[in-house]
């Protein structure tokens, strides 16, 4: 494929809007007579609301209404009415449904007032009396009650292979260890918000923070018994989400409820504290048993996973998928059980399952490599998987070896000494660690529309999202490339439920999914243009087939003889109806399903750990990624860098603490829940190795949103071991654990 645009570094097309403050997020759309809703959250984790007294709030001038389970209108009640595209099996939470409290900080009332400040004050005046029931939030003490769900939300654990017990007994190197990953919260910088604009006649336009406008639209229509024509959901900019916007969150339901009841526009924004009141990465405990033979070949692998879920939905993620993808091993046993607690249902959070599973797997493998006395990178090379054993399929492409090579070169891995505590600088123990990672390169069904105007301006649209991932930019590039137009002449529209159907933006699949639809929609326009060209008298392209021509620099020209060409502008001026359209739906090819499709990474970390104080600094991180074709190296690099920062947060900082006495996440703000800040980040490098993939999807791309995260925490954990000789198997690795 020619590359006017694809593979080129491009500034974000929405950059100017973002640096000037013009880009509008869900809470920033104005409406006439806008009212403000503030949510009252429950103080207990479990029980019933015995009494809720809203009179003091209602007595204030300017308070419009206080919605509770007692006065909410009788909407839909069936579970299915509250299911959204990302709902796990079970019974979804229904806001203000009844007096029951199912988790701490559950929304129990919405105060609506003329101003935000007044609503916030009035919310303080709502008096609640509870009949408290004993809650169950202690993960460890409920391990015994863990169960296999009837239905896994994620992939079902692969079937056992061979005989793990015997292989372990025969192994010459063995480890058996337990790894714990804490609960974490997404905490995008923008708090969840919805502005429900009352359009009259029962119609609403809702500006929502969501990773898929059509999911919100469907949810609202179904929960409120509305037709889809009556609710339009718009979300042009999303201030980060990382999974928190996969499901419509309760502020959306409450804003719509209030707008319908009051027949007024209403905005509801969660507080930062309330950002800890819904989905989160579940706390997870993993028991690993690994065995290798004298040659350092992996012979046995057992992974027993316990993941937190709520009492009302069975959330699970792909924690046990990774051994089968990353390591050949004929004796495996992989199980994933759920521990149901009185918490809100966990929710996919950037690289769900992979962050957790690959962390533990890669630390366990590092431990085994040490047991076997083999350099950790060497150990991976000896145990390099040529096929996905979960599904017994070959990889559509896998340039992980090249990641090893280029990453190791850049990092200087060859100079590493095997023994821990072998490098020191003053009080700082220095350690080098390695880990690898993988992430699915999926494609889903999507639609897109392309319209080329008479003036030569191309508008392409699809109801997808840009949560900072660069969707606007790469789709613009893909479309511009297809028709050989400059970026300025192409506009990509997203985030509007009226646009052609697109799935949720998640799972690193948007470029493959929506990009393929965009490409094909533009190809329809190409066909129409070529047909027009051929209708011209003495057309230089008369006999040409589509694959024999190039669309470049505003012309269609023959590939074999570029002098034979037609100007697009001439064609458009001749066209009868003024503009040319293409609208398509695309889905993954049958051929691609014959292959296992994954992006891969190799991560090298250097840490400095204070020998007395246990403080950790990640001084260098190198990530080499095999991620298929890179559409925009500039934004792609940023995405991987961001993933690396996330991996650092996982390794060293992030931890939502459950106070089991209260059944409540207790560090619920950004002061006490630590995400990495600028000073935590030192040298970081990203390498994209070349990876050609003709099968994975028509663009040959693999998503990059998650592959940047997965290998980082284990690389850091392994580096900390190398520095200190101490294995910390409970994240995050804070100074207290290294004393």
């Amino acid at each position, binding site marked *: 494929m020619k590359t006017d645009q694809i593979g080129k570094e491009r*500034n*974000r097309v*929405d950059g*100017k*809007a*973002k*640096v*000037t*403050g*013009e*880009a*509008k*997020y869900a*809470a*920033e759309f*104005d409406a006439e007579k806008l009212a403000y809703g503030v949510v009252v959250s429950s103080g207990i984790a479990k029980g019933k609301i015995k009494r809720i007294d809203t*009179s*003091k709030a*209602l*007595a*204030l001038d*300017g308070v419009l209404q206080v919605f509770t389970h007692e006065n909410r209108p009788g909407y839909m009640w069936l579970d299915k009415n509250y299911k959204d595209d990302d709902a796990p099996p079970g019974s979804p939470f229904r806001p203000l449904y009844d007096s029951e409290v199912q988790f701490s900080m559950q929304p129990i009332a919405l105060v609506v007032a003329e*101003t935000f*400040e*007044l609503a916030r*004050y009035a919310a303080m005046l709502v008096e609640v009396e509870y009949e408290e029931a004993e809650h169950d939030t202690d993960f460890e003490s409920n391990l015994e009650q863990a169960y296999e769900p009837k239905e896994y939300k994620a992939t079902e654990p692969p079937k056992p292979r061979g005989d793990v017990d015997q292989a372990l007994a025969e192994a010459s190197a063995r480890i058996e260890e337990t790894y714990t990953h804490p609960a974490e919260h997404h*905490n*995008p*910088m*923008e*708090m969840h918000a919805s502005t429900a604009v009352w359009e009259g006649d029962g119609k609403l336009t809702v500006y929502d923070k969501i990773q898929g406008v059509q999911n919100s639209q469907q949810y609202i229509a179904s929960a409120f018994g509305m037709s889809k024509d009556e609710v339009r959901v718009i979300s042009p*900019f*999303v*201030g*980060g*989400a*990382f999974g928190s916007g996969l499901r419509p969150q309760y502020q959306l339901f409450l804003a719509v409820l209030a707008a319908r009841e009051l027949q007024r526009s209403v905005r509801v*924004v969660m*507080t*930062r504290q309330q950002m800890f009141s819904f989905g989160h990465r579940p706390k997870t405990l993993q028991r690993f048993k690994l065995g290798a033979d004298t040659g350092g070949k992996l012979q046995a692998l057992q992974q027993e996973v316990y993941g937190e879920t709520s009492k009302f939905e069975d959330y699970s993620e792909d924690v046990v998928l990774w051994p089968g993808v990353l390591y050949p091993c004929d004796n495996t046993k992989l199980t994933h059980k759920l521990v149901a607690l009185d918490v809100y249902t966990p929710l996919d959070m950037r690289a769900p399952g992979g962050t957790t599973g690959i962390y533990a797997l890669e630390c366990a493998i590092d431990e085994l490599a040490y047991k076997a006395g083999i350099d950790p990178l060497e150990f991976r090379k000896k145990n390099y998987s040529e096929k996905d054993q979960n599904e017994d399929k070959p990889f559509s492409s896998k340039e992980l070896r090249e990641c090893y090579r280029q990453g190791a070169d850049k990092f200087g891995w060859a100079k590493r000494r095997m023994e821990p505590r072998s490098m020191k600088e003053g009080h700082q123990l220095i350690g080098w660690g390695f880990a690898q990672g993988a992430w699915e390169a999926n494609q889903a069904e999507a639609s897109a529309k392309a319209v080329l105007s008479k003036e030569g301006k191309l508008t392409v649209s699809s109801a997808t999202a840009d949560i*900072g*991932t660069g969707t606007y930019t790469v789709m613009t590039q893909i479309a511009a490339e297809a028709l050989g137009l400059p970026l300025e002449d192409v506009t990509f529209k997203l985030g509007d439920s009226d646009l052609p159907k697109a799935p949720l933006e998640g799972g690193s699949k948007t470029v493959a999914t929506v990009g393929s639809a965009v490409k094909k929609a533009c190809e329809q326009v190409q066909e129409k243009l070529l047909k027009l060209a051929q209708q011209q008298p003495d057309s230089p392209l008369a006999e040409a087939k589509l694959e024999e021509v190039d669309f470049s620099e505003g012309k269609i020209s023959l590939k074999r003889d570029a002098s034979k060409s037609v100007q697009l502008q001439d064609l458009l001026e001749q066209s009868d109806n003024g503009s040319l359209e293409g609208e398509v739906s695309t889905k993954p090819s049958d051929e691609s399903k014959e292959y296992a499709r994954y992006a891969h990474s190799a991560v090298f970390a250097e840490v400095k750990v204070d020998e007395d104080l246990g403080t950790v600094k990640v001084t260098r991180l190198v990530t080499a990624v095999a991620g298929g074709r890179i559409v925009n190296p*500039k*934004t792609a*690099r*940023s995405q991987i*860098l*961001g*993933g*690396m*920062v996330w991996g650092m947060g996982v390794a060293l900082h992030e931890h939502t603490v459950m106070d089991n006495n209260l059944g409540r996440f207790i560090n619920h*703000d*950004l*002061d006490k829940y630590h*995400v990495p*800040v*600028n*000073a935590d*980040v030192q040298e*970081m490098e990203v390498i994209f190795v070349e990876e050609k993939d003709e099968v994975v999807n028509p663009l040959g791309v693999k998503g990059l949103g998650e592959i940047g995260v997965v290998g980082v925490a284990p690389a850091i954990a392994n580096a900390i071991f190398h520095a200190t000789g101490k294995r910390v198997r409970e994240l995050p690795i804070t100074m207290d654990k290294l004393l």
Partner: protein
Amino acid sequence: MEKENPPLPPLQSVTLRINGKEQRLELAPWTSLLDALREHLHLTGTKKGCDHGQCGACTVLIDGKRINSCLTLAMMQEDKEITTIEGLAKDGELHPVQQAFIDHDAFQCGYCTPGQICSVIGLVNEGKAKTLADIRDLMSGNVCRCGAYVNIVKVVQEALERSEAK
């Protein structure tokens, strides 16, 4: 139900000077500068990320110094020169720091970006960042959940060089 009227905060007249323009508002004392900007003046470029001084998304410049607009009352900022992200571009031309954010791809979702930009300008005005470590520490008041720090640091380095060249 008959409404009683517990004492609500009285509205007071406030004149704020924002991006060189006087803005007269009737506000209750409990309105933060941030909410005055976003909800009363529709200057939504200044972001609310936590409302508690824990993230830096609401950073604006007061008399050239960066502050968190969520932790000050609008009333307290009368007679001050308030600069928000909307006031940086001049005659349609981006402020060099804005342009540098685009060129270095120093953002992803864009939500922390206006605060980051104001913070960079404030940091340059302070003139205390001498080393890479200084820059990283002095930019730590602006949390970027997308993790654009490496690129943000490049923007700051460039901005410091530019200010030294002057």
